[in-house]
């Protein structure tokens, strides 16, 4: 009755089960997409403007001549191009994104809506301060939240991302050391071998020598190992807490004390702050400076690699050296200090053109207001609970490098359980793609062989974690059973098979260029 058109309603005998090619190369929703330089046209534009009347340029003799080399697309073509590209991407909204150290939590759309209010998005950084009082109020309120959550004295908001925050914090330390007349002697920064690469890179950028602190056999840094390296040349330590193995540094208070006793400073990499918000305050632990990745802990979107925001909270000892600009109360509301000579304190300078990542400040404050102090504490507890739940689900099957003990917000495994299977950490990660997951962080931290760092965040439900654990167990058992093809050829179902990174680096092609016309065969 329902089907009088003769349309088959079941797969039937003729159903195609083999992986057949298609004429277009497309596979249903998975569309191949050319570069705009191949599909666009030099004479096309998707934006309508009238030519100015009576155009008489005042450009001296510096007018641009000839083609720029930028093709255009009409609006429908452009929309389709970028939507098709988007469909080749995995995001948090697609599925579980357990990328350790990156805190891929839910990005609430309320925060997007707030950041787009014209009073925030359509305001220029150099408008008269009387016309931006609400913007300064927001920065002031965000500062109050950050200072309260961390137990520190003040905050420098302007760093544009985590590594920029590290740079800001280390510059404040250098300025404090210089102010004491110790700039010539205190030239060494201690960095644990498990640290993010940005830490040693930051220290080296401003002329510090980097000395590596070995990790203990349990994945943490011992105060004795730090004391062994502290000398009159020590400027600071750069220590991540919770550390990159997902562990809270148990001797952190003693480490801070040892540094302070030696006249040195404690820089804390705050990338993993999400584990302890509302549970413990870095200020109580002896930290002098710590950046906060608003794009991790406070959920401003990662956006495919940015933009981030890396405010640095400072202890009383470093607060006077915070860079310009910053907000202070003035005679008529809030005002901005934009130049060192107008500051009562001793700013070390300026690290970016304007006031930092306002768009991220709005999103982060929206997150904080939504959660409240109770919600932020709950979020940290759930993040830690979820990581331990995964750890518990996989223990016995996948090896934990530092034994079966609780972790913070991320669970670390090594590859010793894959020994003699012919499957590497990389293979295992690529097989996770086929199961619909973004792989965990792999081969980091460097102190663990074949590391797999799993950070589920608080955004995952129990049922989501249960399915993830079941999928991971199935993969792990398959690896141990010797089903290596499931791994070494993976991913099988992604828009691309494994990509040749060696080839990309050996002969770098970093931009599109017109293809050379095919030459006639040699006569």
């Amino acid at each position, binding site marked *: 009755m329902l089907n009088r058109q003769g349309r088959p309603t079941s797969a039937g005998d003729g159903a195609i089960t083999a992986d057949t090619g298609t004429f277009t190369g497309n596979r249903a929703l998975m569309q191949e997409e050319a570069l705009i330089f191949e599909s666009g046209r030099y004479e096309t534009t998707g934006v309508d403007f009238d030519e100015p009347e009576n155009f008489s340029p005042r450009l001296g003799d510096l007018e641009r001549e000839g083609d720029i*080399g*930028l093709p255009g697309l009409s609006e429908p073509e452009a929309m389709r191009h970028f939507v098709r590209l988007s469909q080749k991407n995995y995001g948090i909204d697609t599925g579980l994104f357990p990328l350790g150290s990156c805190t891929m939590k839910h990005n609430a759309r309320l925060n997007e809506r707030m950041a787009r209010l014209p009073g925030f998005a359509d305001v220029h950084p150099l408008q008269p301060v009387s016309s931006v009082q609400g913007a300064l109020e927001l920065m002031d309120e965000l500062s109050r939240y950050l200072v309260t959550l961390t137990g520190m004295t003040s905050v420098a908001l302007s760093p544009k991302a985590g590594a920029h925050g590290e740079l800001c914090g280390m510059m404040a330390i250098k300025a404090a050391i210089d102010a004491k007349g110790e700039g010539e002697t205190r030239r060494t920064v201690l960095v644990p071998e498990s640290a993010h690469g940005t830490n040693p890179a930051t220290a080296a950028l401003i002329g510090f020598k980097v000395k590596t602190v070995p990790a203990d056999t349990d994945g943490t840094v011992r105060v004795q190992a730090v004391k062994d390296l502290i000398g009159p040349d020590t400027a600071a330590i750069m220590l991540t807490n919770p550390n990159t193995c997902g562990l809270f540094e148990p001797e952190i208070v003693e480490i801070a004390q040892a540094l302070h006793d030696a006249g040195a400073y404690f820089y804390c990499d705050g990338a993993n702050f999400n584990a302890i918000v509302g*549970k*413990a305050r870095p200020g109580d632990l002896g930290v002098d400076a710590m950046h906060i990745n608003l794009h991790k802990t406070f959920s401003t979107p990662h956006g495919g690699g940015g*933009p981030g925001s890396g405010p640095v909270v400072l202890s009383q000892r470093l607060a006077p050296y915070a860079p310009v600009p910053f907000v202070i109360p003035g005679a008529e509301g809030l005002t901005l200090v934009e130049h060192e000579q107008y500051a009562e304190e001793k700013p070390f300078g300026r690290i970016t053109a304007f006031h930092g990542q306002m*768009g991220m400040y709005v999103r982060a404050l929206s997150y904080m207001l*939504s959660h409240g102090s109770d919600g932020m504490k709950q979020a940290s507890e759930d993040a830690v609970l979820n990581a331990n739940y995964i750890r518990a689900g996989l223990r016995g099957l996948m090896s934990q490098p530092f034994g079966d003990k609780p972790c913070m917000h991320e669970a670390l495994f090594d590859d010793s359980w894959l020994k003699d299977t012919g499957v590497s950490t990389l293979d295992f990660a690529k097989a996770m793609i086929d199961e619909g997951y973004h792989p965990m962080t792999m081969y980091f931290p460097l102190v663990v062989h074949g590391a797999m760092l799993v950070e589920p965040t608080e955004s995952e439900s129990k049922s989501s974690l249960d399915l993830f654990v079941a999928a991971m167990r199935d993969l792990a058992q398959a690896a141990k059973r010797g089903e290596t093809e499931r791994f070494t050829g993976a991913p099988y179902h992604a828009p691309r*098979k494994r990509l040749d990174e060696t080839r990309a680096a050996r002969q770098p092609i970093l931009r599109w260029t017109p293809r050379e016309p095919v030459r006639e065969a040699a006569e």
Partner: protein
Amino acid sequence: MRYLPLSPDDRSEMLAKIGVDTIDDLFADVPAEKLLTEPLDLPRRKGEMEVERILGRMAGRNVAASTVPFFVGAGAYKHHVPATVDHVIQRSEFLTSYTPYQPEIAQGTLQYLFEFQTQVAALTGMDVANASMYDGSTAAGEAVLMAHRVTKRRKAVLSGGLHPHYADVVETLSHMSGDKVVSLPADPRADEDILAAIDDETSCVVVQTPDVFGNLRDLTKIAEKAHAHGALLIAAFTEVMSLGLVKPPGAMGADIVVGEGQSIGNSLNFGGPYVGLFAARQKFVRQMPGRLCGETVDAEGKRGFVLTLSTREQHIRRDKATSNICTNSGLCCLAFTIHMTLLGQVGLQRLARVNHANAVALADALATVPGVEVITGAFFNEFTLKLPKDAAKVVEALADKGVLGGVPYSRLAPDADCDDLLLVASTEVNTDDDRAAYVAALKEVLA
């Protein structure tokens, strides 16, 4: 709490599975006396409506650019961004993805980065561009460090036409790294003798065009002198739209080009996030900072894209890296790429002409106000007025009359002895009415 999926029952079950009694058992490594027992002194959770009210009130205390005659520039510019741009960058797959470390499921990001790099290289007239820096000013700082690596020298010469905030960023970084900077005095009329400042110790000379006063500068002779002394020319810009109409730095001998890309695709955002553009000659590619996206093939020979030359970067090279940058301006690059793709070169050129025509019309109109002198000869969409009064006071008085008239140079550089100079920008958003309002208000303020 609406963002947290676990129920109290879930939590109990999960703790049991883990094998601990309470959540604080998982925090056992935190020194007991440091574990917070009381909630912090901040408000409790709020629903969407309450948050909207609080932030809406704050936003309402700011004057949005689109609500007034608006002529503020000096490093950030009010342009119209097509609706398509904001729609696409909010797609989940772009907004909520990470740095493309797993290229098989990040071809969307990687392909637009490859397109972005190609667009930036074409615009600047350079061989290669990276996948972005934080903003124009930090890109300038990185360019100076890169020049030091290439030349193995440590002295930078900064033009007096460079945006003072950019100069401040370079000076702060150089002071900290122990490198030398020679900053020439403010140069409103673009007549400084920068050639005389270049010697055999010079690593690089940094020149902005259009400069902070709006002057277009011919870089050709500076490049020649720099190269003759073994130094590099770093060209900077704060208004990328100028490249639709003005000779690109690559055609004038620049070795590194840095600039602010905000004007294409990105809102004013009170100063950020923006997108730093960074381009260079091919031979310097292995000294470049930041991420690079490159073309390759997959196991079936299909074209694909990956992050490449990462041995330059901090996660591999650590303290020997070319930069400490990790997170950059990904989504702002996407906005840039979409807007630029919609424009195409014909759209960009036309839009640039509209900008220039509006600025010329404004300059001519303001020049009729008694006591006002336009001191910029050749410019794109920004120029400098010499006023008979303190420019900062004039700007405040104009704001009281509902016109945001520009940036007093003294706000950027209080000690430059340029208190009477006002930087004025005009873009496609300005109308005849805006211009008339500005002229009328300025006449009253100066009367």
